[in-house]
């Protein structure tokens, strides 16, 4: 794996993502809408600590959804280019890791800002909240990669991610990948939880590892190039002696040498 190629992949997909302005705007706006619509409901009398917690968690889960969908777009958005890029010499790991890097940079920009925004609105432990949302973003990247590897198109992938985040908010939460970050977010809201911080972090890291490993396996299986049988040795040697086509292509047909570079 070459760092320069990895960086090229990350930069190119960063540019691709940054130009999807409408999609990016929706991804950023949706968790904000989740959060502030919940806050508006709390404006009235009779709000409980549970209500406050629900708003906090739903906003944080909204940000996880946004990161998962961003990962889905970045991995799936270049689907048609995957195999041509492999033929061009990239390794599958370089392509996927470079794209993951792009989304992690996006997450590093969004999640602290979102944590600070919540902190200005609610009485929360900023450090624990930032850790919870940040860890949630890491798990979400892996979720998005797996969704992209599982389904062929963005729309189906978005539905898969909605399903994961939706189930996350139910009684099945302990068996879902975002349980660990969720525990930290609840803890940041000042509510006692049964898990310890190391348990929550370990759950998130194991979830990320499992999801990412499954995503990588499925994705590589989808894009991999088929091995060819070798040509006879004599033919292979001769084939490699052919001058590159690219040099001749630059020459207009009418002025191309008739026989200067034939084999």
């Amino acid at each position, binding site marked *: 794996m070459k760092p*320069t*190629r990895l960086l*090229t*992949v990350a930069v*190119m*997909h960063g*540019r*691709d*993502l940054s*130009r*999807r302005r409408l999609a990016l705007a929706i991804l950023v706006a949706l968790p904000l809408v989740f959060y502030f619509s919940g806050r508006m409901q709390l404006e009235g009398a009779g709000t409980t600590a549970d209500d406050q917690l629900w708003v906090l968690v739903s906003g944080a889960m909204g940000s996880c959804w946004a990161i998962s969908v961003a990962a889905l777009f970045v991995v799936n*958005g*270049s689907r*048609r*280019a*995957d*195999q*041509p*890029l492999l*033929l*061009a*010499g*990239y390794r599958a790991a370089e392509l996927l890791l470079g794209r993951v890097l792009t989304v992690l940079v996006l997450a590093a920009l969004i999640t602290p800002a979102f944590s600070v925004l919540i902190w200005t609105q609610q009485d929360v432990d900023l450090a624990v909240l930032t850790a919870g949302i940040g860890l949630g973003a890491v798990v979400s990247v892996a979720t998005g990669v797996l969704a992209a590897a599982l389904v062929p198109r963005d729309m189906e992938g978005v539905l898969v991610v909605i399903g994961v985040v939706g189930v996350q908010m139910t009684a099945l939460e302990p068996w879902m990948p975002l349980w660990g970050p969720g525990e930290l977010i609840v803890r940041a809201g000042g509510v006692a939880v049964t898990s310890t911080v190391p348990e929550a972090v370990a759950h998130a890291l194991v979830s990320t590892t499992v999801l990412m490993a499954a995503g990588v396996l499925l994705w590589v299986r989808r894009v991999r*190039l*088929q*091995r*060819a*049988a*070798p*040509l*006879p040795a*004599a*033919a*292979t040697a*001769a*084939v*490699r002696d*052919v*001058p*590159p*086509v*690219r*040099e*001749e*292509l*630059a020459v*207009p*047909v009418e002025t*191309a040498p*008739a*026989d200067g*570079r*034939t*084999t």
Partner: protein
Amino acid sequence: MGAPTALSVRGVGKSFKRRRVLDDVSFDVRQGEALAVIGENGAGKTTLLRICAGVLAADRGIVARPDRLAYCPQEAGLIDHLTVDEHLRYVGAGRGLSAAEARARGGALLEWLRYPAGETATVRELSTGTRQKVNLALALMDGGPLILLDEPYQGFDRGTYENFWEHVETWRDQGAAVVVVTHMLAELHRVTHVLELRVGGGWALDGRGAAA
């Protein structure tokens, strides 16, 4: 003794669900030869080329080809929100080219294809024909002894189209083996062999049938 073989296909078969598309297809393409793959829609032309390029697995049979090849798929493998210049640098980096080298090589190819100079739009804003020119230029950036082209001229203007077929002959003269999927039967005099695929898996090489 003839020129060395650049592509050897032996007994290749492929089915999608219960539909047989390719059945025991065998042929060789030697350096300096051009093979046209023809046939009606659904006959398996694109499937065969994808198998030859290694982007699709055959159910059975063997394909031997060199490590380096140029493959231009029918559906452009472009990233919608990147510019052409960014595509050149992206693909060029995979081939180990610096940004300047990638621009120079890709630029020469695009000039040959009469690509509008100074274009800075993202590829999603380009016409079908212009996107196809970018697709072809990216495929040919590093050349290679084997060139696989799946109807690469779709949407080309007339001048570029004629230029393309003249270049097929030039590539052959330079020792490359060229395989072109085409519906343009009027251009078959420009190739050395014609492989006709038939719906249901039958095929014939240079008019000689090898399967039902």
